[in-house]
Structures are given as C-alpha cells and as structure tokens.
C-alpha cells in the first residue's frame, strides 16, 4: 500500500492543507463523426490519485472521450488541461506522443515483434533502463518475465504487461479502455482487484471505460454515467447507485422497482410509506426503489415502521441471495432482494416495508412548484 493511504489523518492535514490538486480538467468537449454526434459537451475533473470510471451503454461516447483525452482524435470543441497546462483546445492540439498520458487498450495492443521487456521499455525511449523495466514488471507481478515473447502470455499476463508498459514512463494520467472485457469471467474479478491495487501503488490518476456496472461500482472512487454523449451523473459509487439522477440512470446501474405514489411538497407517499423528495413536487409521482431497499419477513419491522401484508408470487434463488416477487394489497407486484434463507414459496403471507433510500421521479401528470 502507498504511503498516502497508511498516513495518519492528523499528519495529512499538516503537510497538504488544501484540497486535492486537479490533474485533468475537461471542459465542454464535443466530437462528431460525420452526422453522428459522439460527444456533446462533456466536462470532467479528476483529482490526483483517484480512479474514475466512465460507464454507459455501447455507443454512448465513452471510448471517444478517452481517445480525445489521449490525443488520438481531435475534438470539435472544448478544451483539455493536464496539470493546469492546456493540451487541447483554443488552437492547441498536442500530439499524443507529447501528452504524457498512458493508455491501456481494450485488446492490450502489445507489440507482437517485441518481448515483454522491450514492450515495457518501449515508452522509455533511449533512456530505457533495465532497472525501470524490472521495477515495473515486479509491480505487476511479472518479475523475471522480461525475455518472454508476448504471444506466450495468458490473457491476465498480457493485461499486466500492457499496464506496466503504460505506467513505465511515469505518466500523469493513465487511461484504460474496457480493460477487463477481453478476460474471461473468473479472471476478470481477480484482475479488477489487482489493477486497482497496482494503480494505487503507482500513485497515478486513472480514468477507465466500462459498460459493466458491477465493475464500475466495485473498483472506482468516482463514477461518471454517460448517455448519448453527455455525463448525466458524476459521483461516488454509492451516490450514483442509491441516488440516481433519473430513471434511466437508475435502471442502467441496477434493478429498479417503481411504485405509483403521490407527492405533496417535499414528501411523497406510496403504498410502502412516505419518502423525502429532492425537488419539491405535487401530484402523481413514481417512487423508485432498489429491490434490496424493500425488506420482507413474516413479522413486521423490529422498530415499528409501517409495513403492509403481501403474498409471495414467485422466487428466483441465487445462492447468496434470492429475488422474491410479492403482490401488495393494491395488486401491484414488486421484487425484494433478501438473504438466501429462509426459502420463500409462492402463496406465503409476508410483511413488506421500506428499508433503504428511495428516489421520486415525475410520473404521470404533475405540477412542479417554484422552489421555496
């Protein structure tokens, strides 16, 4: 682990009193390919040492954003600053080889005619030091593999070499384009953790693209949700998961249940209870809940919160948990995610209540009030 991580909090405040330095600042970046708009004005700031995920469906523009930052494409509008220095925009367009930004490609793009060591040394140019190469290979857990040809490596090893090669020239920022999509499922989980550890240890700022919500939520410090060439939400994994900005973002990051409800100002009421509203609103609304925010048991909640009686309709069992579909008194059906035991069966009478954050979205005819 890096020194920063293990430092006591008090010392931290003495050494660096100000807030973390901005490494990357992207403002209003836009790019079209012919008629198709890939990015429509994206702004993003990355702080030193953070790992940020760009997530969105395929074709949303996330890879384009990465390629613009790397300098592999030229933006139509907007600017990119690295460490406060303009590298793109206002007539400036620094060539990719002069940006000091590392990149790990989706297919790793290792040079097939060079061995592992030469691949890692490639970005070091003539000042290539044997020591630096060995240091990088040790960092990614491939010490002593410098003389091996790259085609002999497994997928996970190729990934490590690609990472070592990108990190070797000590870039300010490293970009990873769907880094785990070429690995099989069992390896993916392991490489996620390893890559995160390596990036933390190298102390580099990282931006990576993925379309896998689990991946984005599990290893990043912040998540940017992209849709149709725009960032619709940027926040910690917990924020974007539990407080999505709209129904689309909610559905993209996980399963969602929407209950009909009625709002009055800052509160909305649905069948399962009353929840707070972010923007004051009146009338019919939808109350969005994650399945795990709906609790279920034979008895009601221990703290005496309101609950309703429901009947189990169906159940899907996953081992570590189960998804139970219940019918509420209003005949509306919702899914609850709960622990794998006890086993519920269709026909069981249970009690159901709210046990987690909820989001209210305009649903049906509504009247928006002026904010007070």
């Amino acid at each position, binding site marked *: 682990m890096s020194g920063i991580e293990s430092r006591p909090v008090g010392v931290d405040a003495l050494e660096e009193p100000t807030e973390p330095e901005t490494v990357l600042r992207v403002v209003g970046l836009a790019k079209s390919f012919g008629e198709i708009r890939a990015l429509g004005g994206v702004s993003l700031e990355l702080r030193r040492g953070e790992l940020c995920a760009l997530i969105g469906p395929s074709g949303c523009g996330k890879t384009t954003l990465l390629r613009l930052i790397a300098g592999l494409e030229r933006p139509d509008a907007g600017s990119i600053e690295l460490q406060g220095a303009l590298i793109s925009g206002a007539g400036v367009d620094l060539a990719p*080889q002069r940006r000091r930004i590392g990149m790990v490609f989706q297919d790793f793009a290792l040079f097939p005619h060079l061995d592992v060591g030469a691949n890692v040394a490639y970005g070091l140019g003539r000042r290539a030091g044997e020591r630096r190469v060995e240091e990088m290979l040790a960092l990614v857990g491939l010490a002593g593999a410098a003389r091996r040809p790259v085609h002999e490596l497994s997928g996970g090893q190729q990934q490590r070499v690609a990472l070592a090669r990108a990190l070797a020239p000590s870039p300010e920022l490293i970009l990873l384009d769907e880094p785990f999509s070429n690995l099989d499922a069992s390896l993916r989980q392991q490489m996620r953790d390893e890559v995160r550890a390596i990036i933390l240890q190298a102390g580099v700022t990282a931006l990576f693209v993925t379309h896998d919500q689990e991946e984005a939520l599990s290893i990043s410090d912040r998540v940017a949700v992209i849709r149709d060439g725009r960032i619709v939400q940027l926040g910690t994994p917990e924020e974007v998961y539990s407080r999505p900005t709209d129904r689309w973002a909610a559905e993209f990051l996980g399963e969602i249940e929407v209950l009909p409800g009625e709002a009055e100002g800052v509160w909305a009421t649905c069948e399962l209870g009353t929840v707070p509203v972010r923007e004051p609103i009146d009338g019919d609304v939808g109350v969005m809940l994650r399945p795990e925010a709906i609790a279920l048991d034979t008895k009601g909640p221990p703290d005496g919160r309101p609950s309703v009686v429901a009947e189990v309709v169906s159940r899907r069992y996953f081992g570590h948990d189960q998804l139970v579909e219940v019918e509420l008194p209003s005949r509306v059906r919702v899914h609850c995610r709960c622990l794998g035991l006890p086993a519920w069966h269709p026909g069981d009478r249970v009690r159901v209540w709210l046990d987690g954050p909820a989001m209210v979205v305009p649903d049906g005819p509504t009247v928006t009030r002026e904010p007070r």
Partner: protein
Amino acid sequence: MVAAVAALPAAYLVIVCADDVGATVETILRSRTLEMTLRSAGLAAAVTATTVAVAVPLAFLTTRTTLPGARAWATLLSLPIVIPSYVGAYTYVAALGPSGMLQDLLEPLGIERLPGIYGFGGAWLVLSLFTYPLVLITVRSAIVRLDPRLEEAALVAGRSRPEVFRTVTLPQLRPAIGAGGLLVALYVLSDFGAVSLLRFQSFTREIYISFQSSFDRGATAALGLVLVALTLALLALYTRTRRQGGYYRSSPGAARPPRPAPLGRWRWPAIGACSLLAALALALPLGVLLYWAGKGIGDAVDWGSVGTAAWHSLLAGGLAAAVAAVAAITISLLTVRYPSPASRLLERAGYAGYALPGIVVALALVFFGTRIALPLYQTLAMLVVALAIHFLPLAIAAISASLLQVPPRLEEAARTLGRGPVATFATVTGPLAAPGVAAGAALVLLYAVKELPATLLLAPAEFQTLATQVWTETTFGQYGGAAIPALVLVLVAAPPLYLLSGEAVHE
C-alpha cells in the same frame, strides 16, 4: 506522383493517338486490324474453352474422387504454371519444329515434313498447356471451400447426384470458373512470347512488328489502344464475376469434408488422362530443355554470355522490385490508413499497369522516352520503370495485405508511449509489415525476370537478359543456346512461384 507514373501508359497512348485522330481512326478501321482482333480473340476463346474443359473435371477428380494420389496429382499438375509460356513455346518448337528433335529422329526414316507446330494450332496447344493451372488452382480452391452441407441438404431433399451437381454445386462454382477462365483469356490476349515464337499473327505480334518495321508510331499506338480496349472489356467481365463470388461464400465453422466419389474401374482412364497431361505440360518441356541443354554444353555453350544475361536479369529485376516496393508502401499506407475516394483511386491507378499487356506498357514508355524524356530512352532506368509499373500491383497486394494485418491500435499505443509518426513506423509498423514487403518485392523480381516484351522493347542495346536470350536464340533456331537460360529461368523462378500460387489457394 507514383500513381501518375503508373497510370501513364494508358494515358499516354491516348495522347499519342489524339495527335492525329484521323490516322488513328484509319488504322483502327483497317481491315487488317479487324482481322487481327478476330484472330487474337479467337485464340483467347479457344484457349479459354480448352483450359476450362480440361481443368474443371481435373479439379473435381483431385478433390472429390478416390483417384489414387489425388493430392500428388493436384500438386504435379499445377506445376506448369511456373513455366513461362515463351519457354514452353520454345520447348515445343525445339521438339517438333523444323530441325527440331523429332525431325532429327525421323529424318533417317525418310520423313521430311511434319505437321506444322507453327500457327493457330500450335499457339492453341502451347498456351492451353501452360495456362490451364490458372483455372485448376482457382476452381480447386473453390471446391475445397464449398460448403458440403448445401449439397447434403439437396440430397436429403430427394435430388439425385447429377441433379445436385447441376443445381447446387455448379452454380456455386460458376464465379470461380469464370474468374479462372478470364485470367486465362487475359493471359492469352497479352501474351507475346509464345505466339511470336509459334509464328501466330496475334495482336501483340502485330504491334511488335509495326513498332520494329515502321516509324509510324501513331499507327502502333492505335493498335495498342485497341488491345487496351479488348483487355479492359475482359477486365470488366472479370470484376463482375468477382463481385458475384462473394454471394456464394460458404457459412463459417469447420465443414466436414464430403465423402469422395468412388471411381471404380474409371480409375485407370483417369490416371491415364492425368499422366498424359503431365507428360505434355511438364515432362516434355523439361525433357526438351535438358536434352538441348546437354547438347548445348556438348557444343561448348558460351557461359560468359549466360552469366552476363543472368546478371542483367537480376539487375533489372532487382531495381524494379526496389522501386515497386517503395511505391507500393506509399500507396498502401495511404489506402490502408487513410481510406478515401482519392486514395482508392490511387490504388486503382496502381493496378492499371498490371491489367495492361506488357507490350502496351512498354510502348507507352517508348513514346514517352522518344518524345519527352529523350535522355532516358534506351537506358536501364527506362526498363526498370516499365517493369516496376507493370508489376506494381503485385507489390501493392502483398504490402497492403501485410499493413492491414498491423492493427491501428498498435500504432496508437506507440503514439501514447511518446513516439511520433516516423518513429512509430520505424519501430512498429515497419518491422511488422516487413515480411509482406519482402514478399511483394520478391514477386516483382520474379515476374520482372520472366518478363519478355517490355524487356525486348526497352532494354538498352546489347543488354541481353535471360528472357531476351531465350527469345533471340529460338528465333534464330539456336535451340541449344536457348536451353541454358530457359532452364535457369525455370529453376530460379519455380520454387517461389509455386509456393506463392499455393498460398493464394489457401487464402
């Protein structure tokens, strides 16, 4: 620039003809021109029909039947492709022509006149024997790639084997047969050496004679233009069959090869036919070459002149290969990395030189040399440029294929690692594409060494190459003198050419 040079031949012929439109039209409309056109077209048609008739059954015989040693026969019977048609013609003339081997043998028996090898019949026979592998290789590879499940489906649907062949198999092979046949037709139309040695009045020979005998360059150019028109018509046909070919692509996945048809008693006639073909297209030419070579050595062959000719062949071919490789890298980089209508046009222009008969390319450069670049006329440089233009497409095909195999990601990775475009090419793209560049250059070298008409027209005085030596000696009936250079040509060109044709089949 490169493409401009490559497109120069056709363009220049048009310019020369435009100088005197009246004379051009008159030449084209001359009855002799029409006669030549018909003769050449007739020969092309006859040879094409013969090669298809021979090669298509042969392709089936060697892929879909229990013919003993089917693979070995396929290999053996593809081999004549490495014998240049003029070398083949030389062997037939040396064997069957006046004062040839056969006459030597028969003279003591009192037989003095032989049925002539010269003329239409001889040209037909010789060109068919040395071009049928073009059809064989194309059709065989198409049969191997056929999806047997389609035929199985038809059989299961209750059709008889002959019906399945007619309604399922043959329609799928039609593009391959068409492509192979058109390759043969193009070859015959542009062939100069074989028809000249066999004294068949073809279009190319007419152009050569017109060029040699008269100073009326306009008339020669007009004839060249007619030949170009014929070639382009065939080429248009060829591209149409190629386009239809994609339609019949078989489905992916490892197809189970179909059960070969048992030949039974027909085995023996089949083996006999294969043996006869091998004798005519392979054993006879090689035997004749060896016979005359032995005789030539006995008559104290002029090794010095053979050595010089070999050196000249290598020099001209090597320089042409280098020029073509550099040009092809430029064009391929543009078309592969920056595809645009303009770059595609550039690539097409690069291919123009190959489509045109060698004699037309040479002719255009002669005009260019005598009218504009006089200092270059009759220099090695002129010959090198002609050969490079003529065979540029071979280099483009090989080099752009190898560049296409270098993923752009690798170049981007190099850029993000701090290397500029030039350094990226030097350290990543170049090394990875090197085998393709070498293969392309080698191909140009091989074809340039074999090339005859352009070399005859453009080589500086006293600059004999192996190819021109074969031609000159045969023309003068000096069969012994032609044998050694011809043998050297076949030996040098055969192994790589054969490998390359095999590779083409695998693709």
